[in-house]
């Protein structure tokens, strides 16, 4: 029986065999380190430092930024709003996108056109969508008020972006409008990947449409569903452009979510340390969420 070569020996062999390839990979690794590792490391170091108003860390090794953040009276409201925004928009997206994908998975005249039209909001940059909707929602000059008053639904113009409730709902609406197409198209791709013969077999067994949906479609779509919702929730947590352009988190921080609030902390109020601390918290929460979610997904697959 031959002894397995040691790790160093294998490393030397590997190096001798593929030396040029490793040298050529150096720029990519450096790029990865500079553009990904460095910003994350910088964020973490700054979060644990005293930071002056020009964003220079002056002293490393303090929890003060996290303590200040914990004492910030607005934080509970920001956390509530962030969760409502992230989970709320994704829930609404799923409710709209899944039936939409089911419809698009059937054959009807104009199906290709419907798919193309569906993609328009998603193809639009978030900033463009948000600016367009900001004008539609404008209290005095917006077309929504004009339309609603013309058809007699409202008598007085509604300032959609001026009241906390309507402003938050409007921001969620724009987020959903911009993102639902991606979810629907991904669901559609998942539906088209289901082998048709299992439906044929189910039909032969006498299954009805509801049973087909419940026992065939839903289990087959579970993985797609899990991945799409995970990605969408992470994107919604990180969402910035829609709220910033529509309301800037106003009035009274009632439409702020974590991403917009940390920007305010850092760049408007010059509490850079607290801004970085909130970034670290968001980073940790999203990482934990992703890990738990993928573990759950793995567990379900194994079951």
């Amino acid at each position, binding site marked *: 029986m031959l002894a397995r070569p040691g790790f160093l020996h294998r490393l030397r062999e590997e190096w001798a065999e593929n030396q040029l390839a490793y040298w050529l990979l150096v720029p990519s690794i450096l790029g990865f380190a500079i553009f990904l590792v460095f910003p994350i490391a910088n964020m973490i170091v700054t979060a644990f430092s005293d930071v002056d108003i020009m*964003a220079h860390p002056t002293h490393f090794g303090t929890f003060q930024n996290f303590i200040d953040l914990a004492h910030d009276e607005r934080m509970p409201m920001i956390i509530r709003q962030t969760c409502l925004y992230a989970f709320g928009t994704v829930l609404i997206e799923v409710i709209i996108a899944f039936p939409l994908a089911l419809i698009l998975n059937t054959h009807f005249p104009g199906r290709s056109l419907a798919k193309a039209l569906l993609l328009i909001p998603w193809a639009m940059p978030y900033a463009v969508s948000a600016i367009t909707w900001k004008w539609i929602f404008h209290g005095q000059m917006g077309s929504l008020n004009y339309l609603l008053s013309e058809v007699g639904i409202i008598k*007085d113009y509604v300032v959609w972006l001026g009241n906390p409730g309507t402003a938050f709902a409007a921001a969620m609406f724009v987020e959903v409008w911009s993102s639902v197409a991606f979810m629907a198209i991904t669901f559609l791709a998942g539906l088209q990947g289901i082998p048709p013969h299992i439906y044929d077999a189910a039909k032969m067994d006498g299954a009805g449409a509801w049973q087909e949906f419940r026992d065939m479609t839903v289990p087959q779509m579970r993985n797609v569903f899990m991945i799409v919702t995970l990605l969408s929730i992470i994107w919604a947590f990180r969402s910035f452009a829609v709220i910033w352009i529509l309301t800037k988190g106003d009035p009274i921080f009632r439409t702020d979510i974590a991403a917009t609030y940390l920007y305010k902390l850092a760049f408007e109020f010059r509490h850079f340390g607290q801004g970085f601390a909130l970034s670290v918290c968001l980073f940790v929460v999203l990482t934990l969420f992703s890990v738990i979610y993928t573990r759950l997904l793995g567990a379900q697959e194994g079951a």
Partner: protein
Amino acid sequence: MQNQKNGLSRRNFLKVMAMASAPLVLAACAAPAGAPASGTQGGAASQAPVELRFVAMDYDSRMQPDTQAVMDAFNKSQTASTVKLEVVGWPDGRNLLLTQISGGQAPDIFNGSGQWCLEFTSAKETAPLDDLMGKEFLDNFWESGIKAMTVDGKLYGMPYFLDPRGLYYRTDLFTEKGLKAPETWADVREAAKAISNPPDIYGFGVGPDDYWWYAWIGAIGAGNDLAPWTQDGHSRIASEEGIAAVQFLTDIVLTDKTSQPSPQNANRDSDLQPLFLGKKMAMLETGSWMPTIISHDAPDMQYDLAQLPVAKADMKHPNVFWPDAVMMANQSKQKEQAADLLKFMFNAENRLQFALQRGVIPERIDVGKDPKYVDPNDPLTKYKEFYVKELATAHNVFQTPWPATGSEDQTSVTNALAHIWLGEMSVADALTAAAKEIDTRHKLT
């Protein structure tokens, strides 16, 4: 076996990755576009003009070409330096400068709000200009403008934009209702009630920020202490005058209902001015740039200009301005050449052009008297003269000592107004809470 046949072995994977990375290596080794060839660098470098960078905030759509013309003229006027202009939008400007300064990449000169001047100066990131500009040169400027940029006896910014305010009102509507030009808060309320007919026309434009300041100074009157801080640094916003000021605005918003809807998030430039220009608002307090905008966007509008209204008829009318500055970065390695650029930008001819282009009040005394600026045949001259006169008594919002938490303190006031106008708190309660929040932030409680 299947895997071995179809899968990518580690060796092949490395080959693919290496081939993909090769262009990066080549790109990294290549000279950057526009870089001189290595053989020509030596001797030419010592004679090359110094390159200056000017980061300019965008006031309007003409800012870029107008400023570029000045920079081109400067580049032609001498050979010691060339200046590169970078125009950026106001909303991103402060953060862009902050990022560049923090990263040791500050532009040589940049313009911005007087508040930024104080913030950057407190972090020792602006260069003192007194010696670089010289007393003789600075004597050409209004003292109020120079004082606004002076911290601890040293000048840290050239006043770029002095913007006292006034009350614009529609003379056709006032004549129709038999109303006189508004002078007091009572006049404003009476006129707004008589004219307001929403959504066709709103009586009086109300918002946070500037609009709180107009009411605040109107409650106190010119000749008195207009600072929102007491001598020992406590906030005065919940004082008797502070409550009266916000009560005036609140009466218009909630009692009379003569303002435009949702004043808590009304923006002067994107909400209120367009309403006035669209002839959907009878009265609006705004700045000296408005007659120029009206002459372009609503030339047939019948309007006039009055001093900012006061609480009582026997008070003197105050004014207020938010000065902008052109600053020199302390990081600049070519301060002499940057000072030459500043002197060029601030010569009488260029400042006259700037004032005419932007419709702002010149900070140079001689430009304010220049016949080209106060041309008797120009219908806007009367407004220019009005503002030049107002400048003499205008209060500088960024009057030192300006707290490092200035932006956050203003947000406390804005939020108090939102609480009041959303009907969540009374005027006294909201302002008391906001004052307490500010004092706590200043560690005064």
